[in-house]
């Protein structure tokens, strides 16, 4: 049975959390392991309803550490896998996210952000985890994190998260927030969606080395042979050679490995990085935002446009990898960049770093679950 057979009418009025489930099922996700937590519970709930109908598996685990472990293991059987959580659970997942990076395991992690630190504000919106998505696990690595600001975008970016995860063999994090997760809007379920699958090998069993690259494609991403496929596969979180075996005291082996893990992302930033711009061409001021904050930001930009201000709106649908070149170019064009986010200033730091003092970078910060109003932002544009 196909996902489309069970999702219902093509136009629906649903929450962001449910749209995330729709996106995952369309993308081919057939394994979900998780532990319910506000405001991500609806994702687990809907997954438990839909997955069995598609012959998939839903497991409620004992905690988020185990959830992350389960989706990594299931991914190595060849399935597309996902988990969903919020801040406290996301913290627990960090160690295993590093393991997924090191073992190049495709999987999708959804973080529906709420107020932190710790258990914080379970029912309120926040964007306080964006740095945790980037740097939460230890060691040097690159990751992909996407951020939707509408229910429709949630569906589409969930599909994109799976596609990028499969293509680059990296965990992809979908950074939602409580507002988007619990808001209802009309969605249109897209047909004829482009679905990417991890690249597999088709060579003699004897020659396959699981972490050697270039068998089928000239890329820095090794071809994937799932457990049970007949190919010799060995995975470990330790620094490993092309056979997957631990090589822990060889500086070159380690630096080669982590450089490849990073470069497979950074070399392809043009393919991965995607933002939504408006009025960029003649802009003297740029408002950069993401998630729920992007909505009042766009409203403010439209209000300012009516006052004949040359203001651009940039919605950072891709949070990580960060495109320093894009912001650097922007800083040469505009006089001021206004960053709007529901934290004490997180993406603000990366943007300021990329602007290198060429233009003013100011922050509109909103805390406590209060979504900034268009008025808050228009004040800064004036």
């Amino acid at each position, binding site marked *: 049975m196909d996902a489309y057979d069970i999702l219902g009418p093509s136009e629906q009025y649903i929450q962001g959390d449910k749209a995330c489930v729709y996106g995952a099922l369309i993308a081919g996700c057939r394994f979900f392991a998780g532990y319910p937590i506000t405001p991500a519970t609806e994702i687990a709930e809907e997954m438990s309803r839909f997955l069995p109908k598609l012959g998939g598996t839903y497991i409620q685990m004992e905690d988020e550490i185990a959830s992350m472990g389960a989706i990594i293991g299931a991914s190595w059987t060849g399935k597309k896998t996902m988990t969903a959580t919020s801040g406290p659970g996301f913290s627990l997942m960090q160690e295993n996210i590093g393991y997924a990076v090191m073992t190049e395991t495709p999987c999708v992690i959804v973080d529906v952000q709420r107020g932190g630190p710790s258990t914080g504000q379970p*029912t309120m919106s926040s964007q306080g985890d964006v740095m945790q998505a980037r740097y939460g696990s230890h060691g040097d690595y690159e990751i992909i994190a996407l951020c939707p600001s509408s229910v429709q975008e949630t569906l589409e970016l969930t599909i994109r998260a799976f596609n990028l995860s499969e293509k680059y063999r990296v965990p992809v994090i979908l950074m939602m927030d409580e507002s988007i997760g619990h808001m209802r*809007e*009309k969605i249109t379920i897209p047909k004829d969606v482009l679905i990417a699958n991890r690249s597999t090998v088709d060579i003699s069993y004897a020659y396959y080395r699981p972490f050697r690259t270039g068998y089928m494609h000239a890329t820095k991403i090794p071809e994937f042979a799932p457990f049970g496929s007949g190919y010799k596969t060995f995975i470990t979180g330790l620094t490993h050679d092309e056979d997957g075996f631990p090589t822990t005291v060889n500086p070159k082996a380690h630096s080669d490995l982590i450089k490849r893990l990073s470069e497979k992302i950074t070399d392809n930033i043009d393919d991965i990085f995607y933002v939504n711009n408006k009025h960029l061409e003649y802009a003297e001021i740029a408002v950069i935002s993401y998630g729920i904050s992007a909505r009042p930001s766009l*409203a403010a930009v439209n209000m300012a446009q009516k006052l004949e201000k040359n203001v651009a709106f940039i919605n950072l649908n891709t949070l990580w990898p960060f495109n320093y070149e894009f912001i650097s170019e922007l800083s040469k064009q505009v006089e001021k960049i206004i960053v709007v986010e529901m934290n004490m200033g997180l993406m603000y730091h990366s943007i300021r770093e990329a602007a290198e003092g060429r233009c003013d970078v100011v922050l509109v910060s909103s805390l406590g679950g209060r979504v900034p109003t268009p008025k808050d932002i228009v004040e800064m544009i004036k």
Partner: protein
Amino acid sequence: MRREIRITGSGGQGIITAGYLLGKAASIYDGKISTQIQSYGPEARGGASKTEIIISDEDIYYPYIQMADIFISLSQEAYERYRRDVKKDAAIFIDPTFIRPEKNGCYSIPATEEAIKMGSQIMANIIMLGAVAQITGVVSIESLQKSIRSTINERFLEMNINALLKGCELGKRALEENTIKATASD
């Protein structure tokens, strides 16, 4: 045109359901743009509950209420807590079983009283919805019917549709009464 609607009441009165039915009717069946958000979490059964719906002909960026055009309340506690950021000329709907009517005029819809007469108090939200649609025209009655038909379990469908129609009737009556009052005070 952007219209901002806040529905409030006690947890368990079907406040969120009413918001969902309204938003769905507007977006799926009236062809408008609509968002619905809801207060969530600790205020479950018993506590004050609210949902905010925006209905517009244009894209909705900010999904929260700035100044409400329509304010609906089904409990005194929720009324006191959420009757803020409401426009001066907003349409105010209250259920007189729980809330004392406002001096400056509001639509007093005896939704709970009628629901009990119809056999189930939980229909009050649908009755109120009918009255709101009838008076404000924020959504068409036909679309609300479709919204209910595509959402509510078949076993309870008939009684919900009847409740909606009852609400429309109460709306018509309230509108007449208010007109009479307004004329009398002139």
